[in-house]
């Protein structure tokens, strides 16, 4: 499974994408979305192409008319592609495989983000990223003897992943890449939170305001609550959440909406 994106006037369009777009943009081919799915054989030859969005009338071609039009549309096309490739029935689904630490690294923080955008339900699907952490990063969260203040900017490497899956309006007009979260402001508190069976705990909490490389007055804030676990004064685990509203705008700055942005953090230790 992979993806490719670009424009028709690009210089380096792969041959298979040229073939897909030749069919897509052929005069008289009708309206379509800007996303296509296709199946290629092991030699890279195009076997089947379909518009990633369901047909407007929502009616499937096959006998199975149950379920939502979009999954049905995909099931039907995948079935046709499997038949064209001479494959049998699908096997058991693969296990979930989340981003893991690169070889040679010992620890990190896995970040799950989700935006409850009522108009674009696809953004409810979690985005998962893994931020490697070194000893100096964990030292910032060293076990506190008493309540200690911590500037949110020190945690920017993992707080910077707190932005939604789809942020078209926060995209650089020249490079077309999404702006990066470059600022984290706020004074957090790291408080002792008890001990049990050789483990000690601390709670990191407070309000964080995030800004991005797009500048202007764009900013959004949320509440951070993270529990850190220690053994022998060393961090052995971390779990927490970020919750706050994320401001979105419509095309060309029109409208104005706020949706719940949710982040979940968990340590990954080798």
């Amino acid at each position, binding site marked *: *499974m*992979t*993806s*490719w*994106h*670009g*424009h028709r006037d690009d210089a380096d369009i792969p041959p*298979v994408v040229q073939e*897909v*777009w030749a069919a*897509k943009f052929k005069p008289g081919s009708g309206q379509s979305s*800007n*996303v*296509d799915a*296709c*199946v*290629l*054989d*092991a*030699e*890279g030859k195009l076997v089947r192409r379909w518009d*990633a969005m369901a047909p407007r009338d929502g009616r499937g071609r096959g006998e199975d008319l149950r379920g939502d039009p979009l999954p049905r549309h995909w099931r039907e096309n995948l079935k046709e592609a499997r038949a064209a*490739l001479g494959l049998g029935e699908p096997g058991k*689904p*693969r296990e*979930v*495989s*989340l981003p893991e630490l690169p070889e040679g690294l010992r620890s990190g923080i896995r970040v*799950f983000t*989700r935006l409850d955008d009522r108009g674009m339900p696809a953004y409810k*699907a*979690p*985005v*998962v*990223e893994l931020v490697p952490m070194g000893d100096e990063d964990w030292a910032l969260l060293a076990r506190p003897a008493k309540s200690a203040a911590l500037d949110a900017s020190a945690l920017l490497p993992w707080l910077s992943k707190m932005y*939604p*899956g*789809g*942020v*078209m309006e926060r*995209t650089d007009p020249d490079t*077309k*890449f*999404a702006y990066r979260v470059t600022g984290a402001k706020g004074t957090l508190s790291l*408080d*002792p*939170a*008890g001990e*049990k*069976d050789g483990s000690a*705990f601390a*709670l990191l*909490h407070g309000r964080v305001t995030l800004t991005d490389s797009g500048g202007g007055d764009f900013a959004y804030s949320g509440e951070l*609550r*993270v*529990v850190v676990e220690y053994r022998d004064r060393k961090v052995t685990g971390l*779990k*927490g*959440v970020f919750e706050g509203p994320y401001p979105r705008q419509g095309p060309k700055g029109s409208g104005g909406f706020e949706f719940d942005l949710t982040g979940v953090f*968990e340590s990954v230790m080798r």
Partner: protein
Amino acid sequence: MLRTATAVLVLSLSAFAQSPEASSALERFAKLRPGNDDLAMYRLDWAESLAAAEKKAAAEKRPILLVVIHAKYGDMITGHC
């Protein structure tokens, strides 16, 4: 099953953390942490580029599912676009 295991683990940790605020944070984590059903996209065998997918497909004699987006922006590998 995994979601249940995660919840049990977190609840036991919340029992360990003595402060009510820390326990509350762990309970919120257990509620919000996506389960396997939410993470279906991560069941797929993603390749970072079309070139990488073609190389892998040829070596393993497997087909490729390719998503083509007519837009200058988009990064389905990280999920941000």
